């Protein structure tokens, strides 16, 4: 058992400040336990989101010592002895109160993506696909929508752009649809123009931040960028499309 100092940002849209709290840390505690301890002992009005406490609901995202992370999965024994732990709300989203943010922008992005459009069923009424074909897509289904990838992405976090960038979470969703063996929709134009695939400069912070270890950059964003190259920037692919108009370079069905 040891005493730790927590430096927690307290405030709302009108402003705020860091407030220090002291917490008795027991072996096995995570940051979220300490926040509950602060609520119990010092500040019952401290706001934060949490739910499952098992790294599966994605609610308790915040910035811990400047790095986006899940407070329920950040163990206290990962900090140095005597190290002050700084807690802040996610930078990329508007603050509601204390550590709670308004992440509703993400849901609006999701609504902008056209839903899954499967091909017609087989004559026996079944949809058939092979495991090897959906392995790639299933990786993206692990997403818990914690939005840490969105928070750490410098385009959403720090940049002024003339274009919109949907963010890593939704590039992964677009990839899961575009790579799906049953999906028939052509989404490449939108990946380029409306989701802003060209804005991503592959600095991989989203992949580093993902608590589910999804290969967002290598398996979603870069493959989508390559599909955009197929369509818009590769003269050989353009020639192949002209010579073999019935054969799409990205096989849809």
């Amino acid at each position: 058992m040891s005493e730790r100092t927590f430096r927690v940002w307290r405030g709302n849209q009108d402003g705020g400040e860091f407030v220090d709290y002291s917490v008795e840390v027991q072996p096995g505690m995570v940051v979220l336990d300490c926040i509950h301890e602060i609520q119990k002992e010092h500040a019952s009005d401290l706001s934060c989101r949490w739910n499952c406490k098992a790294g599966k609901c994605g609610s308790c995202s915040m910035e811990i010592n400047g790095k986006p992370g899940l407070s329920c999965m950040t163990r206290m024994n990962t900090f140095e002895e005597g190290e002050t732990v700084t807690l802040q709300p996610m930078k990329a989203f508007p603050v509601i109160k204390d550590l709670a943010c308004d992440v509703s922008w993400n849901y609006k992005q999701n609504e902008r993506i056209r839903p899954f459009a499967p091909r017609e069923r087989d004559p026996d009424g079944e949809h058939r696909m092979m495991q090897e074909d959906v392995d790639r897509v299933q990786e993206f289904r692990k997403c818990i929508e914690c939005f840490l990838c969105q928070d750490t992405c410098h385009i959403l976090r720090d940049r002024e752009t003339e274009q919109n960038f949907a963010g890593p979470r939704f590039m992964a969703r677009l990839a899961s649809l575009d790579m799906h063996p049953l999906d028939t929709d052509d989404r490449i134009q939108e990946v380029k123009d409306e989701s802003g695939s060209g804005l991503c400069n592959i600095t991989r912070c989203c992949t580093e931040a993902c608590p589910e270890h999804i290969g967002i950059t290598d398996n979603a964003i870069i493959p989508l960028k390559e599909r955009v190259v197929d369509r818009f920037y590769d003269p050989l692919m353009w020639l192949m499309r002209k010579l073999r108009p019935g054969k799409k370079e990205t096989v849809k069905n």
Partner: protein
Amino acid sequence: MSTATSEQTKFGPRKGERPLGGHVTEALQTQRNDFWQKGPLLTLLGFGAFVVYVHFRAFMGTEYYAAPYLSPFYSPLVYANPDFFAGSPTFHSLMGNLPQGAIDFWKGMVGWLPIALPLSPAFFILLFPASFRGTCYYYRKAYYRSLVGSPAGCSVCPLSSGTYHGETKLLLIQNLHRYAMYGAVAFIFILTYDFWLALWMPVDASGAPWVSNAVSGTDPAGYQFGFGVGSLVMMLNVVFLGGYTFGCHSWRHVIGGRLNRFANGNSGSTGLTYAIWKGSTWLNERHMPLAWISLFWVMFTDLYVWAVCNGWITDYNTWSMASGQ
């Protein structure tokens, strides 16, 4: 999708704004308290060392061949330059000796410079691997972080606060990576051929190891099969560069990633395309270490050839054992 609105492009506090949440907004500021600068600094040092070395060796234009080893910086050797000691294995070059007229023209072009600038065969070669690595998806991360601070680290404010275009305007050129990749794949075959040649020691008419054109003025009379430490160094160079190239994201896409269905709809079998894609994916997961190992090893291979060429080290090999030297 609906059209994006300006409201949707702006979220967290920007430079000059009141930083809610206690966040910082100035260039290179962060609330991280770990040594996040370590990665960008190591990258900068690694790149810097390589760039300095490769330029030095390319501008040397000589001492790139120590029979039977050819430095990868000079492969494929388009022409031999008879002006230079140990830089002219005429039999190894694609187009023989460089015409005297070309040498004179070059001297006329650069003669005004305060330093001697040889017409190095490396000038014609290094552009290809440089463009491959320069547009590589891994190296982009490395130099966007280390060189331009865009951003320098995760959750670190970017160096520049101007309007951000990413890879949509000038940097659209990064999309040429696929073509650089085609060139890099060709280089793997070329370097494999060089490794094959590194197993055959050129000998003169008496069976003694051949001495370079610059000294003997003659081409070798024959070749003797064998193996040396240099052959192993060149083999590992091919292995590491192959691992890096065939784990390239563009290669992975072109050979299978572009497909949505690998399996045959009737039999369910996946076939060769899937196997190759899986293999490339395995290498892709190791792309960063392979990028650095192959970068280091290609430099080391050149250094080895340079050192043997000058007699700084002895190349242990079967040819010298056979001749009792």
